[in-house]
């Protein structure tokens, strides 16, 4: 009896597109971290205190 779990084998196109999405996500997350860092520097302790 074969107890090996059923696995999805990705095609080459699916692997390429997954890599493209992963790289884009990593870049976006990195950019968001940098953005939040600079906004925190600019706003200082008042970062969460905005008048209407």
């Amino acid at each position, binding site marked *: 009896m074969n107890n090996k779990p059923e696995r*999805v084998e990705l095609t080459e196109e*699916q692997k390429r597109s997954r890599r493209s999405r992963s790289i*884009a996500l990593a870049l976006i997350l990195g950019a968001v971290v940098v953005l939040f860092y600079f*906004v925190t520097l600019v706003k200082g302790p008042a*970062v969460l205190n*905005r008048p*209407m």
Partner: protein
Amino acid sequence: MTMIGDIAKLPASAADAAPARPQASVATAGDYAALMKPRVMSLVVFTALVGLVAAPGTIHPVLAFTALLCIAVGAGASGALNMWYDADIDALMSRTSARPVPRRRIAPGEALGFGLTLTGFSVVVLGLMVSWLAAALLAFTIFFYVVVYTMWLKRWTPQNIVIGGAAGAFPPVIGWAAATGSVSLEPVLLFLIVFFWTPPHFWVLALLRVDDYARAGVPMLPVVAGAAATRRQILVYSLLLLPVGALPWLMGYAGLAYGLSSLAAGVLMVALAWRVWTATDGPRATSAARRMFAYSILYLFALFAVLLIERVAGRLVGVSLAG
């Protein structure tokens, strides 16, 4: 209750009835970028930038960048949610059939999740980091575009883009609100320019794509009222746009350069609308419509660009005089 660990114990019949394993996605980052309608986004960012720069006072460049980024992401969210909802009619129209959802590059549920995530991100970050008024306006704009325009007006009335055009007119107001934390008459004038520009811009496109819209069952003006009525409405709105475009100058918010530019650009818009109205048949009609569509994009860009240059130049002169 069936826990995850219990799935292995399910009888064969239950396992057979389980839904098929979802296909792994072939969507690339480019497909997700296309979902955000980058060309529309660029015009939104530009008009928001003008609203932001035209506002009195100063805003830190990092916060200005954050505001524009959030407005861009909010516009992208609107585009993704629009493509999720309109996938059925997009598939029927040659202009939109290559979009990621009708091409099955991105599943409708993925487009919905992507749009909602971007909406939450853009509104919350704009509120926390820049201004809650600007964030509220951005949230309202996304709601107006997706729910009022896409879900309701677009498939219901030929006035869809007249009322729905308000969504595209909000970005300069959001930019202004981001810089000042308030809204006054001046950004409302910028809103009015985009609002009155939208109908002739989209109707002249609809004249060129009338078969597309008819096939998809979208009640655009040329489909419902015919080409002649549409041409008349294009001319009427272009005539209305002429004084509306000059309002910032007439009301003292912009200088002579803007005033003369807006009048000259407006007269040319009316002249092209006149050609669309008089050229009713054959290649001449198509050529007139194409020319006006291309010019209408340039018109809006030019008006806002002149306003931007005036403000930047005014500030530079102010700084040099103060120095």
